[in-house]
């Protein structure tokens, strides 16, 4: 599936110069959580680049996934201070609730569970992002409540 309309709108907004490439890729991820091969070909056509150039830029960035991800992407901080304050139990709680391991997406494509480097909340760790939203001061109980709430969301 290509998102021709989406990409055309993004090109209209950001322009066709190389500088526009990152905002366009980010826009596709905002809408779909990942960039498909056909998206990359389409973007390349619009910006008059080779698909390899688009692929090269996209695959460099950890927040620009080229594999399908769930609607809600959970990124748990794995930097040492969050780790010291109970990151493992947080990840374990989420794994048990969603029945996935780190790096996996639930079969209904609703959640992906990832680990990531320092989120900048070391004084309130453990911390995680769900899409853009930060959650800090996590405990297994708190994370249970947060994930339950997301599960009940449509």
């Amino acid at each position, binding site marked *: 599936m290509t998102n021709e309309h989406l990409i055309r709108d993004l090109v209209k907004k950001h322009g066709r110069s190389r500088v526009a490439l990152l905002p366009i890729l980010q826009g596709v991820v905002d809408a779909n959580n990942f960039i498909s091969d056909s998206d990359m070909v389409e973007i390349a056509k619009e910006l008059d680049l080779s698909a390899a150039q688009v692929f090269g830029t996209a695959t460099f960035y950890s*927040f620009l996934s080229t594999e399908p991800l769930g609607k809600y992407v959970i990124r748990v901080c794995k930097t040492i201070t969050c780790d010291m304050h109970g990151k493992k139990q947080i990840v374990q709680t989420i794994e048990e609730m969603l029945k996935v391991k780190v790096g996996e997406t639930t079969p209904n494509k609703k959640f992906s569970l990832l680990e990531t480097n320092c989120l900048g909340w070391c004084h309130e760790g453990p911390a995680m992002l769900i899409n853009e939203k930060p959650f800090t001061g996590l405990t297994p109980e708190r994370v249970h409540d947060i994930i339950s709430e997301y599960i009940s969301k449509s």
Partner: protein
Amino acid sequence: MSESKLKRVDLIFGEYSNTKYKVLADTLKRRNEDILEDLMESGLKGRGGAGFPTAMKWKLAADAPSDTKYVICNADEGEPGTFKDREILSRVPRKVFSGMAICGKVIGAQKGYIYLRSEYKFLLPELTRELEMFHEHIGKMGFDFPIEIKLGSGAYICGEESALFESMEGFRGEPRNKPPYPTTHGFMGKPTVINNVETFVNVVMIMRLGPVQFKLLGTTDSRGSKVFSVSGDTPIPGIYELELGMPLDRFVEEFGDGDTKAVQVGGASGFCVPRKKFKDTIIGFEGVPTGGSMMLFNSSRSMYNVLHNYLDFFEEESCGQCTPCRVGCQQLRKGIVAVKKGDKKAGYLDQLLKLSESMKITAKCGLGQSVANSFSSIVNNFKEEMIY
């Protein structure tokens, strides 16, 4: 904390001015040479880690002949243990914008950008609202200086200035060769000043207080105050603005939990200071410099785990462009695992130390060059923990 021995400072988060954007309005009326002279006099050094004198950077860009120049605020804050730029941007964004505009006036730039890490994207709505107000105010002052926010996409290396330009230009965030430096060949190949978020705020406060008062804080080599991000084994983690040039033992006295065995100063790319060296260690450009990250570890922590965590970080975040760093990071991590498991003899650590030293010389950018900082300071000070 009335018995506190460390002087608390209230510069960065303190009051901007009694009327909105007054410091900016006043400064825009001054002559560029006078502004630069005040900055020079203040001794301000960049707060992003490397500590380059800010006045000199601005002067180089001001002197670079070009009709097009840029001001960029580095808000990619990705160093493990650092969270002060997020706090500054959410609490005093007007100071950041003002510092950028003052820079724009001094160097003759037409446009400013804030490169914001995607992990902080949640700040975007509020920052956008603040920027609208800023543009309104600065318009009334008769100075046209649009500021635009560019988002990163989760790559620590994009905090390195030339990688940041590459990223903004739509490429992979791979650092460039230096020279040429950003002040002549920066974003889009044009003269560019790139400063840390906190550096811009310092500029505004120097404009407000004057260099003489600013210099009262800190030491000869480390003027002013610094926002510290304190985390790890401490009863009071958080953001603290303290004078530069303080001895580490007093810091530990105040922030430690009574059992501190090591402090990692400056994040994963910084230095690990063991207890026996707290007394002789000064936090500042004359001693151990830091972008603000201070992680405390007590005696229940394994320094092997700490180092392993840092090496995982470097291995993942290395842009992979040059071999010493791409392969070196992997080999260091594999090496300490092998020693710990007993697959390699303890003496192998010396070989790994040599490898990290050669990375310091041969890696292309600050990432690969600084892996040796934490590697050698942890391995040398906690050798037993690496082996047993």
